[in-house]
């Protein structure tokens, strides 16, 4: 009995040793080559200067962080790095209405042993920290920033994370080498949300949050009166107390700084709008996922709106082999039967199907929200706070498919947020003298196959043109690999098995790998030339592995290259494509 764990330990040690073996190739080429010039010329590009304002073939010169020149007959400066942009489209860099991009909050220090009265906690325990500024939490290395930049976002309104009043937001560039490089305007807004305090402390419900907000605003008004009176004639008056929390609300009360709220649901939207009505402060309202249900209320407000770029996921069928959903999701309301009941266990599948139709029907409202708001005459920008950067373009395309005009979508990404956030003299269009924030794509940004090739932030180039390796080359008959395969990987710790699935057609393959623990990962760079199949897997932790196997009939054999020695992998096809589809 004792031998087995020891043996395992030995194998583990071996594995650690193998993994830790120093690289054999002495040189490391993973360094950054410095930029020789910050002047760039995008030559002969299609330039979308502003929505509906297109130059079919023009050159854009970027210099010293600014757009130096735009036009068909622009002279390329002597020190420009020329980028042949004949087949490329240049847009103004997108502006994010509200997000936590570039924000890294410090780890919670936990309670410092102080006894707090849950009914009357100190401000920070209650989540009331309007005296904080997002400026101190900004870093260009924050996770998530790169993804948004690659999606085309070059600037945005960033706010700190927290609860009810997490702090002031800033207008920031989504790039640079330091936090100072990023900031355009600090303390641009005061961020708030209907979020209860962490833990068992007041405010623990939404009604308390609203009551507390109301209280804070009233207190601040009073405090401001006192201070004004004191300033007018301090003699004979007690000095008003220093109070950063209330003082931080003064610019909001003065109407200089808007309160920025995030609210997705219809009820929170109404609550925030009511609060705004009551407090009479300028408001930026972001989120609005369910705003299709609050159109009237939104029409009666002058709040600046930012719609979330997140959309609900499509319903997936838990049971297999039924294609009804695919046929009905386009117009679920035609098929949904509100009167359907479930008299016996035999009709459970019917009910399930009916529920999915209901889901699809509800989802439809969300897909159409952007179009609904537009048709109601509401002007809005977008917020990426809840959206996955990788889904942004798909979701925008969905919104356009559901009725949002493309030019309005583009305006909502560029000119509208620029003017709402007071950045229209610096950002939002491709014009001379503006900050060089640009998105360069190989086609219409909203088309399905388009890729973002370059992004400029503050005149700095982020080159994504080499990232096309995400898709491999398919030259062999894909039917030889489509389907599900079981694999066995021979590792020093023993054999590991799992499954691989491949889907797709000659134009490209997609696949997933599911390991013995049931963890699923996407396969990247899948190539197949008829016999040799190769792909890479990037686990969440650790280096990516590249797999190359030779496929023969319904079996494969090959190797997996790791930082250590290569491992042998074998596999068999367990289900062929015919069994899966058609």
């Amino acid at each position, binding site marked *: 009995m004792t031998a087995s764990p020891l043996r395992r330990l030995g194998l583990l040690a071996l594995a650690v040793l193998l993994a830790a073996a120093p690289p*054999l*190739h002495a040189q490391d*080429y993973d360094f950054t*080559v*410095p930029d020789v*010039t910050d002047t760039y010329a995008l030559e002969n590009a299609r330039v979308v200067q502003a929505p509906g304002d297109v130059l079919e073939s023009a050159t854009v010169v970027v210099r010293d962080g600014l757009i130096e020149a735009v036009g068909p007959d622009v002279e390329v400066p002597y020190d420009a790095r020329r980028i042949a942009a004949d087949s490329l489209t240049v847009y103004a860099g997108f502006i994010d209405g509200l997000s936590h991009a570039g924000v890294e909050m410090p780890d919670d220090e936990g309670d410092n042993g102080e006894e707090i009265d849950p009914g009357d906690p100190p401000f920070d325990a209650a989540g009331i920290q309007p005296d904080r500024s997002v400026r101190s939490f900004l870093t260009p290395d924050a996770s998530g920033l790169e993804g948004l930049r690659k999606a085309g976002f070059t600037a945005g309104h960033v706010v700190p994370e927290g609860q009810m009043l997490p702090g002031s937001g800033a207008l920031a560039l989504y790039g640079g080498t330091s936090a100072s490089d990023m900031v355009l305007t600090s303390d641009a807004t005061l961020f708030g949300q209907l979020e209860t305090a962490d833990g068992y402390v007041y405010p623990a419900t939404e009604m308390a949050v609203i009551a507390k907000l109301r209280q804070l605003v009233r207190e601040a008004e009073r405090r401001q009166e006192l201070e004004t009176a004191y300033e007018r004639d301090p003699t004979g008056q007690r000095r008003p107390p220093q109070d950063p929390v209330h003082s931080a609300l003064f610019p909001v009360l003065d109407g200089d700084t808007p309160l920025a709220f995030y609210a997705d649901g219809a009820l929170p939207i109404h609550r925030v709008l009511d609060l705004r009505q009551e407090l009479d402060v300028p408001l930026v309202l972001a989120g609005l996922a369910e705003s299709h249900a609050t159109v009237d209320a939104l029409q009666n407000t002058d709040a600046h709106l930012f719609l979330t770029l997140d959309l609900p996921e499509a319903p997936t069928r838990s049971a297999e082999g039924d294609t009804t959903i695919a046929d009905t999701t386009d117009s679920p309301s035609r098929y949904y039967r509100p009167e359907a009941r479930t008299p016996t266990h035999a009709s459970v599948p019917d009910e399930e199907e009916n529920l999915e139709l209901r889901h699809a029907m509800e989802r439809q409202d969300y897909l159409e929200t952007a179009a609904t708001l537009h048709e109601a005459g509401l002007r809005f920008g977008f917020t990426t706070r809840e959206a996955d950067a990788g889904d942004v373009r798909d979701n925008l395309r969905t919104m356009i498919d559901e009725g949002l005009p493309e030019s309005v979508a583009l305006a909502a990404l560029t000119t509208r947020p620029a003017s709402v956030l007071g950045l229209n003299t610096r950002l939002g269009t491709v014009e001379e003298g503006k900050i060089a924030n640009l998105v360069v794509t190989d086609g219409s940004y909203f088309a399905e196959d388009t890729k973002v090739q370059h992004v400029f932030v503050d005149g700095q180039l982020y080159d994504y043109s080499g990232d096309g390796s995400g898709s491999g080359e398919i030259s062999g008959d894909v039917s030889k690999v489509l389907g599900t395969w079981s694999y066995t990987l021979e590792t020093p710790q023993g054999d590991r098995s799992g499954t691989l699935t491949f889907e797709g057609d000659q134009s490209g393959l997609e696949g997933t790998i599911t390991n013995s623990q049931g963890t699923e990962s996407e396969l990247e760079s899948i190539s197949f030339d008829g016999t040799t199949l190769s792909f890479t897997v990037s686990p969440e932790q650790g280096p990516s592995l*590249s797999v*190359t196997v030779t496929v023969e009939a319904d079996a494969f054999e090959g190797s997996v*290259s790791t930082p250590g020695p*290569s491992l042998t992998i074998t596999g068999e096809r367990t289900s062929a494509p015919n069994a899966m589809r058609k």
Partner: protein
Amino acid sequence: MMLIPMLSSDSVSPRALGLWGLLLLFGAGLLLPHAAQAQNTPGAQGPYALTNAQILVTPSDTVANGTVVIRDDSIAAVGPNVSVPSDAEAIDVAGQTIYPGFIDSGTHLGLQEVGSLSETQDFNEIGDLTSHMNALTAVNPNTVHVPTTRVHGITAVITEPETGMLPGTAALIGLHGYTPEQMHLGGVTLTKLDFPSIGRQGPSDDRSPETIKKESEEALDKLNEVWDAAERYAAIDSAVAVQPEARRQPTHLPAMESLVPVIRGEQPILISANAASDISEALDWAEERGVLDQVILGGALEGWRVADEIAAAGVPVLVGSIMQPPTRESDRYDKAYRTPALLHDAGVPVALRSGKTENVRNLVFHAGFAASHGLGKTDALRAITTTPAQIFDVEDHVGTIEAGKRANLFVANGDPLQPDTDVQHLFIDGYKLPLDNRQTRLYDEFLNRNPGLEK
């Protein structure tokens, strides 16, 4: 002397000894020289007349009995009928032979003192892109290894930086002088490129073929990225030169600035590559980048596999170190020794490099091995005299014993490629240099230990 009682005394803690104590300790352990061991008498310029000598004017041209007159830093006259000037110190070297000073085409001489002490290694700079490191600035003119190198007739070496893709520039230095600038010979400066190794690096490299391919591509991409940036830098620099007032200099990047002379074709590029595939790739790369006619290939241990390709490219090669086993187990045992001959037979100009620091003097034995493994003595001598002089474009100054050239020469009592030959006199830039050195002093002292080893 003081060191031993100091160390044996219990009252002195290692801590109290401090850094200086530690240095002394290591110094004693490794017999580090101290100031008193530097050469006793400095060299002096003549004029000198070496008479009754056999003179190897060039490796293929010998004067049986003649005189060499050295005046100031140059050779004033050479030949059988040269008379001794009245002011010259005449040295009768009857029965001996005068050779041109030898040139080692690749060393770390002056850049490292003690191999095991990283503090004394100056050829390894930290960083990824260090093309602006000049080996010359780090050369220690007073290194103990210079006198030990001279005893075998070596009067000039290329000294190279290491580490990274573009480690910096190598320099040709004469082995006499008290500042690096005095030593710099003919201003020879070579930008070194350690060409990325593609392909499998020996039997212990168990990366999968895909990984090797991927990593090679990444390395080459990186090299091209650096070169693109350097070309852009050079282009902007040229554009600014046209209108210096109206235009502004590129962002100052020393690493890029240092590559400009190569991009403009003004400076040779020393590409170091050993594997056959790396050499082919490097030649292709150089051709693509338009620097092929500036390329000098270094290392080239597998050069014989692609000798025709190197010859066709017209690229000279600094081969070595050849004193090692063949690169592949399947190769004949003497393949490395034969590499210079195989390259020479293919028509490639071949110079030899020892690749050493402390043992640069063994260059003569490298040449001896090359000579006896196909190259022949004449061509082996060329590989350490005239050929490197031509490759580094200093053939007007050094490499032969001809009037007007710099007086870099030595007198030997036999064939200098043989171990039992002694160098009797050695001149660099007309300075007659003493031949005693650290090793001769140790030899003298320990051969005659007093009071011996009794008791």
